[in-house]
């Protein structure tokens, strides 16, 4: 493996970690509510702006601004669930009875609303978030990486691990998984499915916003900054298996590495097409994704 290959592998894995932060939330929402949140990229955008403006305009230290961005994203998630999502399934215990087709329109509308709201309120200009560390270059063998990117990758690993552990072992995590498996069954067992939905939306919004905040010194906050990461997340959720958190993590890392190598050894022009090609191949040969379950619905 040559120096540039190591470089590409490391950068691909780091990019994959950032994709994972985004995709986990989207996957959770699909698992619980069986809807695709088309405004997911805008939670990421709001997080990038929240971190940048809290740190730059209010002068709050970056290590406080970062968790605050998570809180802003979680609050936006809570607000979205209570005002826009809840009316779609209020009174229904089975997701099969939910008016989930409306969710596509509602979340798509929310996406456009948030982009234009930020454009008008904050302005069209891009803002670069302050880095967590000022070190611009760290040399690790053949790999040269910015200090912020390295630190952000470490934080992303920690946040992904904590999220996965919470979902696997915590009381609320177990309830979320139960609702994900069978909403009606979970409600018959006494689980508050509405509360599970709120928690998932808050967690999803918080994680997306946290990813946006973490990356704002790299991607620069702008009103349309969330569009591409959201598209990647949709691809990852399908590759990993709809609703599967481990699947989303592995698919994210896989996509990051594939894009990194493909951009150099095939063409940078097709970098964003690699994910779509993988998506088509999976839909043809393994539609349930890496960790999803085969199923039929009548």
């Amino acid at each position, binding site marked *: 493996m040559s*120096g*540039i290959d190591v*470089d*590409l592998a490391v*950068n691909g894995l780091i*990019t994959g970690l950032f994709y994972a932060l985004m995709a986990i939330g989207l996957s959770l929402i699909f698992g619980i509510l069986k809807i695709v949140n088309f405004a997911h990229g805008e939670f990421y955008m709001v997080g990038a702006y929240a971190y940048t403006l809290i740190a730059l305009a209010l002068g709050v230290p970056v290590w406080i601004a970062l968790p605050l961005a998570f809180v802003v994203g979680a609050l936006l998630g809570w607000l979205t669930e209570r005002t826009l999502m809840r009316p779609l399934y209020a009174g229904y215990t089975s997701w099969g009875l939910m008016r989930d087709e409306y969710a596509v329109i509602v979340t798509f509308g929310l996406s456009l609303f948030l*982009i*234009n709201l930020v*454009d008008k309120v904050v302005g*069209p*200009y*891009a*803002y*670069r978030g302050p880095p967590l560390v000022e070190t*611009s*270059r760290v040399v690790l063998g053949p790999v*040269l*990486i*910015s200090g912020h*990117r390295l630190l952000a990758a470490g934080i992303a690993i920690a946040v992904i691990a904590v999220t996965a552990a919470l979902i696997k072992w915590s009381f609320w995590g177990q309830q979320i998984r139960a609702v994900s498996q069978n909403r009606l069954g979970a409600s018959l067992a006494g689980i508050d499915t509405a509360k599970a939905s709120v928690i998932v939306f808050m967690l999803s919004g918080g994680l997306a916003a946290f990813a946006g905040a973490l*990356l704002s010194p*790299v*991607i*620069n906050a*702008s*009103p*349309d*900054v969330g*569009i*591409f*990461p959201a598209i990647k997340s949709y691809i990852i959720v399908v590759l990993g298996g709809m609703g599967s958190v481990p699947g989303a993590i592995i698919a994210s890392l896989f996509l990051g590495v594939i*894009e*990194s190598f493909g*951009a*150099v050894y095939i063409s*940078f*022009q097709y*970098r*964003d097409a690699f994910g779509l090609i993988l998506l088509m191949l999976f839909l043809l040969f393994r539609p349930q994704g890496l960790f999803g379950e085969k199923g039929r619905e009548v």
Partner: protein
Amino acid sequence: MAGLLRRDMLGVALTVAAIMLPVVGAQAADPIKVGVTITQSPPGSVVQGTQVKDGLEVAAKIINDAGGVDGRKIELVIEDTQGLPEKARSAVEKLATRDKVVAITGEHQSSAALAGIEVAHRYKIPYINTNGWSDVIREKGYPEVFNPGNYNSRVGSAAAQTMKELGVKRVVSIAENTDYGIGLAKAIGEALKKVAPDVQYKYETLDRASKDFLPAILPMRANAPDAIINLMLPPAAYIMMNQLYEQGVAPSAKTWLYDGSGLADYPDFWQNVKEAGKGMLVFGLYHPKMAQPALGKQVGEAYTAKTKNEPNRLLFQAADSLFLIADAVKRAKSTDSEALIKALGETKYTGTRGEITFSKDKGYAFNQWLDVPYVTFQLTEVNQKVGDSALVSQAGQPLDPAKLWKPAK
């Protein structure tokens, strides 16, 4: 009976005349509607759209405060294209058919301009291309389309000349995947073949919506060129510049960074690039130290009073676009399209940047103001204002590389 009939007819005629008089008077004072297509929301460059809008509004105010054009005020009818060709096409259609504007201007993105001029050509309505740089816009040869702004061949020859004077051997352009970016990358290649045929040149096209350019930058780190030319627009250009800097590629002791996109004009430039912008050489269409006509100074001062921002190139290009329309209406003594197009073709007008005339040569020079003034300057400090930057050369003057700032090894 006949006398009674004549009296009645006279009465009717007087009544009609009494009704019509105010209408005729109102027509004389009706505003001159000028259509504007700009980006006011993503994914196009809203920053550029805002600068163009400010420039047009400043120019309209100057014209209207001076009594308008033969007593008629200028009214801007603004449409948002989002920088998308399909939106630009429908915006021009609406302006031409529903709003009945006398001319259309403001467009600042080549792809949108290329779509808009097709409709303007169909309706034979004057179209002043404010900032679409693509040579293809001119090469179409549409008589309705006039270009007082910059063009790719001009930047191409300026960039090639600078590369020659820097004495570089290998040059890479990083261009966005648009008509503007690809066209300009090719124009630089063509110009280099003429002025510096020994220079090895290639260009990379990157998606302007992408947020990570590392896979394109990493191979450059392994084999750094002598100069990198940026042909991307914000915000993608900022991300790319930061990643170039973080990887130690450019600006560096080995590699010059040359900007052909006017990045330093953007108010958010320094906030987004910091150290990555220090040492960058810039192809500039405006610099406070450039010689400028009195109208340019007036527009610059009015803009600063309005926005508290430093003047920028798009401000002047937009203002000139509107001044040219007003000048053509005045000379044609009409807002009829055919008369306006004829008057625009005969333009000889001292605007904000110099005396504007339109060439009739074929190709990229068609209906183009060929002598668009430009300079090369270098940003030598972080957060440096354009006015404080080092003016390296003006058009036609040689550049001395020994006087340029370069990072230490």
